[in-house]
């Protein structure tokens, strides 16, 4: 039997990598709800600097604190992306130009190349569910902290025609960090874009 998709959260040394511990279960739940993709019932946390990371071609990274790779983490991140894997990095802060964002941009530029704005009609917004306006806005962006900051685009480091690193400042980590059983209380499932990200990673 073909191996199933395992949601992997990457551990990195410089910050609070585990700031959204419930997110993996929520996304796994959504994958099972909407697709027939074989998926493992729980996620794993794997150090980005260890060779075990290559068992998981999709890696989720988040945090609030400075985002910097060690030499081993940088090497592994590059190798993972070069070989066809994908990193999804989400700034768990809701701010503009905060410490996670600034250090992550610098680190991604150093490790790969400068991330560019992903056009809002990119393939990732229609590979399963349709998001005609680009990345869905999070409740934090609309209500959060009184500043109504909305990040219009996601950023990406491209590997040829495909996304190698997907970077988000929209704080999906806060948006999706809840027990999946709570979905029954919502009229609109706000994790559907997470399904798109996984379908994109598995098919592009």
């Amino acid at each position: 039997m073909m191996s199933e998709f395992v949601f992997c959260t990457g551990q990195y040394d410089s910050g609070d990598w585990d700031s959204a511990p419930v997110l993996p279960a929520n996304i796994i739940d959504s994958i099972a709800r909407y697709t027939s993709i074989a998926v493992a019932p729980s996620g794993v946390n794997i150090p980005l600097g260890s060779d075990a990371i290559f068992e998981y071609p999709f890696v989720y990274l988040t945090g609030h604190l400075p985002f910097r790779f060690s030499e081993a983490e940088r090497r592994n991140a590059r190798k993972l992306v070069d070989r066809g894997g994908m990193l999804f990095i989400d700034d768990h802060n809701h701010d503009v130009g905060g410490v996670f964002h600034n250090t992550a941009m610098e680190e991604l530029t150093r490790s790969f190349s400068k991330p560019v704005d992903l056009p809002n009609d990119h393939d990732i917004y229609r590979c399963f569910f349709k998001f005609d306006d680009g990345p869905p806005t999070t409740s934090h962006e609309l209500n959060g902290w009184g500043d109504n900051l909305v990040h219009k685009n996601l950023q990406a480091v491209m590997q040829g025609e495909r996304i190698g690193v997907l970077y988000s400042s929209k704080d999906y980590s806060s948006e999706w960090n809840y027990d999946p059983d709570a979905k029954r209380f919502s009229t609109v499932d706000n994790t559907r874009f997470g399904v798109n990200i996984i379908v994109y990673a598995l098919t592009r």
Partner: protein
Amino acid sequence: MTALDRVRRTQRVLGATVIARSLMWGIAITSAMLGLSSFVDARGLSATIVVVSVLAGVVVAAAMLWQSRRFASVSRVALWIEEHVPTLHYSLVTALEQGQSPFTAGMDATIARHDISATTTRAVRRHLLPATAVLVIAVLLLYVSPSGVLGRSGAIAGMGRLGGAAGIPAGSRLDDIGVRITAPAYAGGRTTNLDDPSTVAGLTGSTIAIRGNGSADGLTATQPAPLRISPAGRGWSISLTMPAKPTAITLRDRSYERIIVLAPVADEPPKIALTSPRRDTTLRTPRLVVPLNANVSDDIGLTSGYFEYLITTGSGEIFKARTVNTPVVHFDGARSSTLSATLDLGSLKLGEGDVLSMRAIAQDGNTVSGPGIATSDTRTIRIARAGEYDSLAIEAAAPLPLDTSAVSQRMLIAMTEKLVAEQPKLSREELVKRATDIGNQEDGIRRRVQQILTEAEGAGEDVAEPKPGDQPATVEEMESPDVISGAKNPDLKAAYTALWQAVRSLKIAEPSPALPPMRVALAALDRARLANRLYLRGAPPKIVVNIERVRMTGKDKGSSSVRTPRSFADSARVDLSRRFYAMVDLLEKDPARALTELALMRVQALQMIPGFAAALGEVSDAIRAGRDATPALLRARRALEAPPEVRPLSQWSGG
């Protein structure tokens, strides 16, 4: 006319002849040497060659004059006449010697009957004609030579030309070119000269001057944009800057073509490694003096460096950050150096929960594409919150000055070693007290490890997390290693066993036997930490999704989509391979085209397959030098393609 008059007249004629002959020979030698030199080295006559040629002419002329010096003497001239007019029977010599003799008139009359002039004339012809012929030939040689001394671009421009347009030699002006590469000023401005190269390698931004012979008229150079060709003395020159990417300059002179490959060498950014502190750490209170050290190196030269401290303050979702930099250190172009600083944490006014990230930054002096910047790994110091005091981070601390607020296994080992060293001087009571203190702290680590192990086995709720106010366990209360399962984490199990033994020894005030198991425990904890980095500040909750229950229960439906195919990854290599074999076919049919194709392939290969590009350069050099290019071709092919895959013969013949 007396005999003396005749002799003197003959002397004058012969003297002039000798002088003329010597001069002619001297000039002929000089002209011949100049003409022959310019044929050998068409770049023009250097001052040395001119001086040597003139000196040779002078020496020859002087030697001939010296050889004929006898004509300075009247009596020698008389003897010469006697020798060439034997019928005089020495009357001339006698007449000269016996000038006052009464027989002088008679001798003069006898002498007058002989035609001395005719003899002299014949002698003049005999000496001057060969010299004249040689002189004419030498001057003609000089005239037709590429030296340009006569006739072509020299002073006697109107004396006729021997075919061809003015100033353009019959051969290619693209042979024997010289290239001068001057590195950018920031890299020292060193100059390298190359003779007739097919490839010019140099730092990006270097100034390149290409020089050749002959007039610049009619020459073109493209890169592929046209390049300006200027006259330079007796030749031509092109000046350009080494680009960032490999390219080829195509030179054309009528039907001649030549390609020169430009192979830029990139200025690498510096390399920097933070050597102190070696690891991240967590402190209870922000009281520590941290020595910082980094090694820096660069391929060309470093300009400056500093340390950056990034302090993040906050909790939950709200964080603020501030950056503090140390004063900039200037390296003045050194290729390697060290950065050092000392950080007193107290000066940063850190509070509970703050995170300090430290790194070193250096830059080089690249003024062409902008300074290359290097950053080191980041080291992090966390200030623990009050609620985290009981969660001991089981990490080996960096070798810093002792701080009793950061208790770790390594610290406990250091404390125990100190106790062992001081043991002979201590009283029994003091020994027991200190050993028990260390033992209690060691027991705290033991209980933490026990909790992780039992949690991993799914029995976490039975083991309470150790808290500061807890009474330390007695030796009897400690769970034996035999009842703790370590199937899922053998390293932690080994650590637990060693910690158990260490605590037992410490609690009975025997610190020396406790040291070996404490060291074993430290090694096992390190292994466990690296194998599966344990986050001990509260394990994240684990939610297992019931896949079968939720499968396809979502109300929304997705839709099909189309994926963009990936592109052929090695298309450039396959193209190079095809071109390589086509070039091999051309080698015998059209070597000039093959050389052109070699140069163009080199440009393409320099960025993709440097080994293949280098081998192509060897092929080009071998062909230009007229050597056998087969070994170089074999090396090029091996660099381009892997050796054939060899398998046994099979019944199955697919593909």
